[in-house]
Structure formats: C-alpha cells, structure tokens
C-alpha cells in the first residue's frame, strides 16, 4: 500500500474549484479525502458536495430541555428548601415562574449552541494544520489525499481546470 500525500489546489474562483472537486471524484478520490476551504461560506450544492453533518441544532435542543428543567427546579423546587411563607401567598405560583423558566431555557439553549460550534469544529485547535493564508484573501483551497506515486496525474488534471497552484502541503502552525 503506497503512502498518501496531502495536496493543496488553489483556485481563484468557485466554478473552477467545483470542476476540480468533480474531477477528483471522477479520478477516484473519496469524498472524505477532499476538504474545501474558503474565506466565505460556500454551499455544498455549489461545490457538488454532500452537506456536512452538524450536531449544533441537536445540542441547542438539548440545552433548551436542560434549561427548562433547571428553571422548573429553581422555581418549583428550591422554594420548598428555603420556604419563606408570606401572608397567604403561594410558595410556587405559576405565572411569575414562567419568566424564570423562559430565561433559563433560552440561556441554556444559547450556551449549548455556542458550545456545539466548539465541539463540532474541534475548537480551539492550536495544532499544526494544513492551510495557506491566501484562502482568507479569496482563494478557494481544495485539499485532497492521493497516493504519492500518482501525484503528478492529479496535479496535471487540476492545473488544466484552472488551479493557480497544485502542490503537496505540510501541516503548519496557523
């Protein structure tokens, strides 16, 4: 089994980048071995790629449920631990409790969403990564893995499609 190299093809625009991705797929590169990096969000449809899975929505929902439960506990549980009877008033009235439950639900949902981005994107990540600063200047980078012996074939194919540079890359400190 030959060793795989990571190659970076830099494209000036979306169309040649999408063509490049299509060409790589035709040449047998698995979709999992292709990563497209850009300075603006590009939809998977633009690049002919499948939609990346994200757990963020699920985590938001989980956060909301946890917040709701916490709000219920604070409002309808803790007053019995520290009971303060006030002339005939209910210890745990429902209408004012709705406010606390709403705020806790939203707070936990927002926190879980924020943490979801960190978890799904593996943030913070300060290890060396494959990258080039030209990407945030508007270039589109297509990273892919290919067998070391077939490197030239891929470089030629992508250069023909308009890649400005196609070369092996090493992970570097960002």
């Amino acid at each position: 089994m030959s060793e795989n190299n990571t190659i970076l093809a830099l494209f000036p625009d979306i169309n040649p980048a999408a063509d490049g991705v299509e060409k790589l797929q035709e040449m047998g590169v698995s979709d999992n071995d292709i990563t497209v990096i850009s300075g603006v969000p590009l939809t998977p449809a633009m690049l002919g790629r499948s939609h990346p899975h994200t757990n963020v929505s699920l985590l938001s929902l989980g956060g909301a449920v946890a917040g709701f439960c916490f709000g219920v506990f604070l409002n309808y549980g803790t007053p019995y631990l520290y009971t303060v009877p006030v002339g005939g008033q209910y210890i745990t009235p429902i209408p004012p409790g709705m406010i606390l439950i709403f705020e806790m639900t939203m707070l936990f949902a927002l926190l879980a969403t924020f943490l979801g981005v960190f978890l799904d994107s593996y943030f913070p990540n300060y290890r060396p990564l494959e990258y080039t600063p030209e990407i945030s200047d508007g270039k589109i980078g297509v990273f892919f893995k290919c067998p070391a012996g077939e490197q030239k074939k891929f470089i030629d194919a992508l250069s023909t499609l308009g890649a400005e540079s196609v070369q092996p890359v090493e992970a570097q400190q960002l």
Partner: protein
Amino acid sequence: MTAASESLPHLEKGHAGPHEAHEDIRQYLMFDPKPRGEMNAMVMESMLTTSWKFWVVFGILAFLVATCFIYAWGYMIAEGLWVAGVMRPSYWGIFLVNTVFWIGISHAGTFISAILRVFKAEFRRPFTRAAELMTTFGLIQAGASIFMHLGRVWLAYWLFPIPNVRQLWPNFHSPLMWDLLAITTYILGSTMYLFLPLIPDLAMARDRSTGWRKTFYKILALGFRGTEGEWTHLHTAMNFFAFAIIPVMFSVHTIVSWDFAMAMRPGWSSTVFGPYFVLGALHSGMGAVAVVLFIMRVTMKHMDYFLRAEHFDALGKLMLIVSFAYSYFFFNDYIVQWYGGDRWTDTLLHWLEEGPMAWMFYQLIFLNIALPWLTLWNKKIRQTPWLLALIGLLINLGMYWERYLIVPVMLTINRMPFTWKLYEPRIEIFLTIGTFSLFLLFYLAASRLIPLIPVWEVQEGQMAHSLRKVGKTHLPSVSEVDLTMQ
C-alpha cells in the same frame, strides 16, 4: 470571487443609457465589489492606523474613566450611598435611569443584527458588528449601573441562587430578580452572538498580523480555517442565535418595564409599559447606531467604502418607523392614564406639564416624536451621515429625559405629598460621565483590536448580488446563498 462585478452587464462605450445605469449601481456596496484581499487590507489598515488625535481622545477618556468611574465609585463604596442624591422619596435615581438607558442602547445591536439577518435585509451586512458591539458594551454599562445602585456591591452574590447558611434565598417572584436573570441571559447571549461571526474575521486578521497581534488573533480565532464543516456549524449556530436572541431581547426590556409597572404608583402602573419600553429602547438604540456609524466613517480609514449613503438612508427609515411605533405607545400610555381620572395620576400629569420638570417633558416630546417625524421623511437628510447622526444624538437625549422622568420624577409625585422632594443628583453625575466614557473607551479600543467590518459577510453579500436583464434594462437581484437553506 467577485460575483457581482462579473455579473454586471458588459457595456459598450458610447451606449449612454446602460452605462449610466452601470455607474449608478456602483453607489451600492453590494454592486461595487473589490477583491477580497483588497477589502481585507482596507479593514486591517483601518485597525492599524492611529493618529495622535486618537491617542489624545483615548487619553481623555481613560482619564475620565479613572476619575469619574473608578475613583468616584470607589469613593461611594467607601463612604456609602449618602454621597449620592438618592433619598426619600426618590430611592431610585440616575443609577436606574442609566440602567434603563444602556439596556435600551443595547437593543439596537440585536435588532439590527438578528431581526435584519432573519429577514435577510442586505443593507445590514457592513454594520452588524458595530451594532452588536453596542449591545455588549451597553449591557456592561447597564450592569455596572445596577451594581452602583446596590451600594454594598460586595454582597451582590446574594442575588444568585447559591445554597447558603444565611437562610436567604432569591425571591423568583420579584421583578428585580427577573432583571438579574434576563440581563445575565442577554449579556451572555449577545456576547456569544457577537463572537461567532467574528471568528472568520479574526482568522483573516491572524493571517495578516505579526508580533503580539498575531498571538492575540491566533488565540481568538481558535484554529478556524474555513472548512465546509466549520462554516456549516457556524451558520447553523448563527441562525439559531438570530432567532433565539429576539425573544430574549424583548423579554429583557419588558422585564425592565415591569420593575416599574408591577408597582401601583402614579405613572408606572400601566399594561402597555412592556411594549412601550421595548420601542423606546429600539428608538434610542437606532439613534445610537447612527451616531456610531458616523463616527466610524469619519475617523477610520476606508470606512467610506463600507458605510455609504444607502446604509444611512436605510437606518433613517428604520428610525422613522420606530419613532412612529414609539409615538403610538407613548400616546397610548399617556391618554389611558389621563382619562383614568385617578387623583394622584392627574396630579403627576399636571406636574409634568406645568411643574419644574416641564421643560424635560416637552423636550422629550419634541426630540423623540416631532424631530424624527419632521426630518426623516426626507431622503436627503437620511442620506447625510452627519445630519442623521445629529438626529440620532438628539433622540438619545430625548430618551434619556424620558427615563429621567419615569424614574426619579415619577417617584417624587406619590400618594404621600409630605414626602415630595425633587431629586438632586450628586456623585451620580460623575458616575454617569464615567459610564459614558467607559462605553466610548471600549469602543475606541475595539476599533483597533477587532475588525469592525464583517468582511466575509460583505463579500458573501457581493457574491449573491447581480444584475438581471429584464427587457431593455438590468435590474438588481439577489440570490439565496444561505448555507442553512440547502
């Protein structure tokens, strides 16, 4: 990736009609794209360029913060609340006025960023961050003002539900407790909402920096590269935040209004206080955004490219609409109380109209209602940045007077005439100057540390815009490029 420029119609020389249309369309940011590298360079230069004037203003603000905020607050903590003007019957003085005012200012950030994002209003793109910063910095001032009002600020932890040996537990049925929870939720939520769309721009800054700035941006960018997965997670989260932060925003100022409306006092006990406060908050916040955008445009390099007449025009329209809604609730609140015939409410209203604070009442009406109605219908005024900023500033003055009348003045006219005594602020004046200075100082520091223009959002917008040929002309059109819609 300059989709908008590429899709502009190819025009032959001497073809006067379309050529003029071509030139005209470039007055809009979305149809005047520059290469991404150039836009990045412009934003970086705007952060890195500081003249001596900047440092003079920075120094003055730092001095004011040191004296009017830190020293004055320290003095009040050491001496006690007697150095302030709050006393019977006005136990809530300027501290609460400032709290309500700053929470109001903070609402514009969420409104502009979240509501306009949900409705995909394209003009929002270059100034969402400037507005979001107002939310975070404004809420810091609001929080500080509440802590000042607490007096014994070191006991603030009593507000939190921490199991304790004091046998004291927060009363969750109190509007003051709701305040704490709502403001905490809002400040955390809006800060996270500020940070998420900032990550790609911090990565851009990281790629273009050296020295301590490189380290600073590297830490904050969290290793962001711009992979499809990172963008998808970010977009999903931002979409959720945009929807979720809106009810939180409404809840915060409604709860602030309940601090007043839940009490059976003349002027306060009103069922429309919730929406009235929310609209008032938006009114002052919109005005503050106009002021901030104008200051950014005249003091920071290249901002005239990003912040154009079209943006001030759109903001002016929003200010006008909000002033309509504000006027509606103001009148609604006033007429119901006026008609009610309650003796003490009548006394209060007469006192507002003819008493020693009547000048404030009439200024409120003029600055918050008459001024925007008389001016903002005019496109030329809306498109003139300094004029819009001036109107925004005056609206904020009017809104400050409104809060002043609601808090200490309405506390003065109560059902016990023998307690009537007009509130006279003392150290609160310095502390107010301190909070304003701190807000400006934060903004000034942020303008040199983080990209105030969301470059990637601007470029995303420019990619989505194109000219579509319809008959003999080309019409602007915008495509759906939202990741979450796929």
